[in-house]
């Protein structure tokens, strides 16, 4: 029988290296996978790890994927650190996009006085939309002690149906040949781009500022400290007098707001209109980003970039190597799985043990021994 035995002193170095180790193992398994599929593994690796960072254009595309992932993962990191399990960032992302899209659709001559300032209003609406969706989770948990994992996850599907209803119904573009999509947002509502000719937009700058902001919040403010104590030792938080209710609301509103902001940036950025394809899985992938990034703002930047490479690599593998798109998901899942395995082995070691035969049967008494 294999037994996990906790290591007396988990290595600090190894717990820092663990994400890199996990990446290396993921790559190895990936090579095996390409071989089994009868593809050239070098070509496969090139598609996943070289093509996405080859030139300015690919880097710009990478930033478009990484921005929402990093924004959402930052909020989730605060949530997970305070022991609030928000699994529904995808839904908050969608509602953020809806709210932002609604403001964007109001643009026109009567709002011309706002000029480019309307983008601020659009993003703000995104934040509020995401917050409102997360507030439902907080309210149900606070009032009725409903499990936030289930509620937030199920609200994802509600949000997707809401989106479907709107783009198939009231918000459908009258001149859109009956396609399920809203009007294309006016140019002044578009999130400003950073460089001419590239799709990279100001969202990546916002994400980097947010990384700094979250780092300060978590490690330099009393509020951030209180939230984390609530996650690490709930009794200690109660002893100190930190309210668990306020921690719940703060964590959910913050992460909901970040997911909503990402949704707003997506709607008024690369998408430019609302379609049933707004939910691209960023909200779920961000859970992996948050964990691979060690729930640390700086780590999240790197893991966000890595996950974006998987996204782009998956798309390229589809067109260039005739591999299914689900390869992206396989790689993302592999990375999380190997990371968890590495972390476990950093904290525990394996011991092979032969089980002692117990000749005397006393099941009821045996229960008591624990």
């Amino acid at each position, binding site marked *: 029988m294999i037994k996990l035995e906790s290591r007396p002193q988990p290595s600090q170095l190894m717990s820092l290296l663990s994400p890199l180790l996990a990446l290396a193992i993921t790559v190895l398994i990936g090579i095996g996978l390409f071989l089994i599929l009868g593809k050239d593994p070098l070509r496969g690796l090139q598609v996943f790890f070289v093509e996405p960072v080859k030139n300015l254009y690919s880097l710009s595309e990478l930033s478009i994927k990484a921005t929402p992932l990093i924004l959402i993962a930052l909020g989730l990191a605060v949530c997970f650190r305070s022991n609030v399990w928000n699994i529904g960032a995808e839904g908050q992302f969608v509602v953020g996009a809806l709210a932002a899209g609604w403001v964007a659709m109001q643009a026109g001559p009567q709002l011309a006085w706002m000029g480019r300032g309307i983008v601020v209003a659009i993003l703000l609406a995104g934040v509020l939309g995401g917050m409102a969706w997360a507030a439902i989770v907080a309210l149900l948990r606070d009032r009725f002690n409903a499990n936030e994992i289930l509620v937030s996850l199920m609200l994802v599907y509600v949000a997707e149906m809401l989106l479907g209803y709107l783009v198939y119904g009231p918000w459908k573009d009258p001149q859109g040949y009956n396609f399920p999509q809203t009007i294309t947002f006016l140019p002044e509502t578009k999130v400003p781009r950073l460089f001419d000719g590239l799709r990279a937009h100001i969202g990546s700058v916002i994400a980097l500022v947010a990384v700094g902001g979250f780092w300060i919040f978590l490690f330099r*403010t009393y*509020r951030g400290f209180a939230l984390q104590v609530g996650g690490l030792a709930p009794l200690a938080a109660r002893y100190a007098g930190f309210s668990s209710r306020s921690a719940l609301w703060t964590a959910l509103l913050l992460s909901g707001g970040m997911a909503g902001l990402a949704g707003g940036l997506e709607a008024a950025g690369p998408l430019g209109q609302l379609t049933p394809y707004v939910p691209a899985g960023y909200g779920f992938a961000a859970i992996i980003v948050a964990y691979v990034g060690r729930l640390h703002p700086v780590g999240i930047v790197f893991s966000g970039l890595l996950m974006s490479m998987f996204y782009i690599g998956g798309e390229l593998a589809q067109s260039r190597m005739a591999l299914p798109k689900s390869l992206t998901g396989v790689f993302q899942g592999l990375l999380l799985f190997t990371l968890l395995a590495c972390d476990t082995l950093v904290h525990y070691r394996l011991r092979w043990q032969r089980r002692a035969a117990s000749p005397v049967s006393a099941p009821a008494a045996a229960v008591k021994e624990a």
Partner: protein
Amino acid sequence: MNPGLRLELTGISKQYPLVRANDRVGLRVKPGEIHAVLGENGAGKSTMMKIIYGAVQPDEGEIRFNGEPVRIGSPAQARKLGISMVYQHFSLFDTLTAAENVWLGLDKSLTLPQVSARIVEVAQTYGLDVDPERPVHTLSVGERQRVEIVRALLTQPQLLILDEPTSVLTPQAVDKLFVTLRKLAEGGCSILYISHKLDEIRALCHHCTVLRGGRVTGEVDPTKESNASLSRLMIGAEPPQLQHRPQTAGDVVLQVQGLNLPRQDAFGMDLHDIRLEVHAGEIVGIAGVSGNGQQELMAALSGEDARAAPSAITLFGQPIGNHSPRRRRKGGLHFVPEERLGRGAVPTLSLAQNTLLTRTQHVSRSGWVHLRRVERMAQEIIERFNVRGGGAGSSARSLSGGNLQKFIVGREISAEPRLLIVSQPTWGVDVGAAAQIRGELLKLRDAGCALLVVSEELDELFEISDRLLVIAKGRLSPSVPVAQASIERIGVWMSGLWDRPVASAAAASAEA
């Protein structure tokens, strides 16, 4: 090698990842002997018992039972050999009757009525009154322990292990237990008696093996030893004597009146009409058997449970019954909880971060934490209270229990509280650290702070308190000055019998 021995351990070692819990220890128990195993927390007593009871396998060494070398692979095997154990924390199902609980722990060869009959038989032989038909939740702690002992005896053990059996008993119930144990020993059963209470060992045991740091430091006849000589073997030194200077108490700091609180969970205790006053410059002690409402009272006073009516608890005349712990702390009320790891400190955070739980003078109005200053404050606490460990940056869980307790007590004392409430100040702390903590509490009292101390150790309360109260079944006794209190009287009160005259109450509490 000695055929006359019931149990013989030779050269037993057990290595855990962080400590060598047993280092080539030996133990020799004769038939019919009450053998004490004495040692501080962490000395290796529990590991040794677990090895004998088959719950842990030794790395090396030999066990002989009745002269035969044995390998005890599991508790079931131990029971088959004739070894029984009564744990410190009972493992009884509340909703079942005593007989059903006993039945569950036995091999299925007997029917329930047979078990009931055997219980009555054993109970009569050893003077252990147990009514087999009563549900366990209606039994007092002493009665529950008797059920555990009866369960152990039904397997007709040749060796009975008792782990700190008196920590949950009143002094009267302890006397009664000793009568039973002596009778058992006369019948030929060997008893291993684990304790750190020197008086009990000297009163009860024939032989004593002393452990310190995983090694055997002495094998003595406890009846020929003094407390001081036993304590030297146990800790390597005599505990320092405390000075208790007489002092007149000042104004009322904490007043509790008419505090009623229903329990929050099924295993809690309701608080009934609690009345209590603590003055500046005095230490008020609350004695009682654990589980009689101490936890609930502490939570209501600290603010962790803020359901009380505002005026039921007043601090300097201000109603605070519904205030949060932080608000109470601003009013000068500081609290040291019973659990150090997970409540008094966050295990994974550094000592510096842990000071932030209750000390916020280095947090600015806007909520900015001045890390340098927080670290300096932690360093000052570490130096002033002689906390040994890795310094301000080391995690709370890396410290030993005693050092972490010194840090937490130090954190609250250095906040210069006007009222300090301490729950179990020296629980699981080694003797040296315990003496230091008690000394600090006395110093604080002399400086004019009001102190309320809850403890299950009567000796400790008698040593430091000015006045004593007793909590039993969620009610609080009237207070009595320590000079007028006796262990016997407090013991009677611990059964909740402070309304009756001492003589009749003593008889009644021995029943309980």
